[in-house]
């Protein structure tokens, strides 16, 4: 098998990212999460850690695609000795606050679809 024979199997970073975001949108829709994409991934990772996502092919596809995405990220960091974060620090905190508030809603109300109704903004969650 030559590399040129495998051309249709080659996945670029942009393709991995697009697939990952599409899967995350589907998971968000399934769990009634109405939060922006930058926060969504962290929320889903937290929910996965807390075993709040049901087993199935969608979850398995998302985990495999997230792993490939992380592989791209690792490779890009190993090329650049001093990589800069893609987003400013404040945004990172905001993402954490959004994710925390979403999980809090799940814990308090026990229903994932209440996240949309009760999730608070980052400023409130940060106590600003």
């Amino acid at each position: 098998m030559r590399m040129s024979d495998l051309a249709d199997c080659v996945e670029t970073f942009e393709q991995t990212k697009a697939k990952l975001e599409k899967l995350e949108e589907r998971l968000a829709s399934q769990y009634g999460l109405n939060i922006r994409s930058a926060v969504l991934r962290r929320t889903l990772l937290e929910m996965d850690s807390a075993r709040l996502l049901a087993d199935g092919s969608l979850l398995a596809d998302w985990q495999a695609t997230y792993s490939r995405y992380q592989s791209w990220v690792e490779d890009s960091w190993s090329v650049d000795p001093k990589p800069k974060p893609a987003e400013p620090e404040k945004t990172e905190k905001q993402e954490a606050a959004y994710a925390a508030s979403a999980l809090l809603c799940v814990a308090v109300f026990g229903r994932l679809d209440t996240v949309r109704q009760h999730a608070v903004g980052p400023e409130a969650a940060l106590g600003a």
Partner: protein
Amino acid sequence: MPLDPKQRWALDCFYPGLVVSTEQLGVESFEAKTLVIHPRGEGIGLIQMELKCALKDKMQLAVVMQLKRKPGLPGFDPQLTSTDLTEWLYPYYSLDYSRRLSDATFRFDLDRNGPAHVHIKPNVKDHWPADQTTPDTRGMDPRAFVAMVAKFRRDKIYPVTRVIPKRKKP
């Protein structure tokens, strides 16, 4: 549906004998899955292989292996017919034998969001640490997994047991 030819090439190259031993379980059809490759230089830096099939008795077998070339090594030349598995990392795998994915008979997983774990009886929904089982399923070769499935189907003896860590005395 037959196995995708490029999946077949990859599985034969990385795990010779895996497809044949799977077919011996009594495959009704394979699921269409596209091989995924990330390039590194002129070769392969990451490869995701999938072997998913329905068996004639309505059980399912699914093997998903993601292999990443170790840092510092050149990309794998696909013109080679075999590879040294020690030159690869395993960031993700899923070895599943079930009636359906959400209700595994037993499944061994590793993903980026936690340590290797297993789904085994009596509670297959639970994530039990893979290093607390007999046998230790961490990084299991998919050929060993298929052999385990074959033995279970033949002998009906559940192949994985939990090892409860001993409590330390105060």
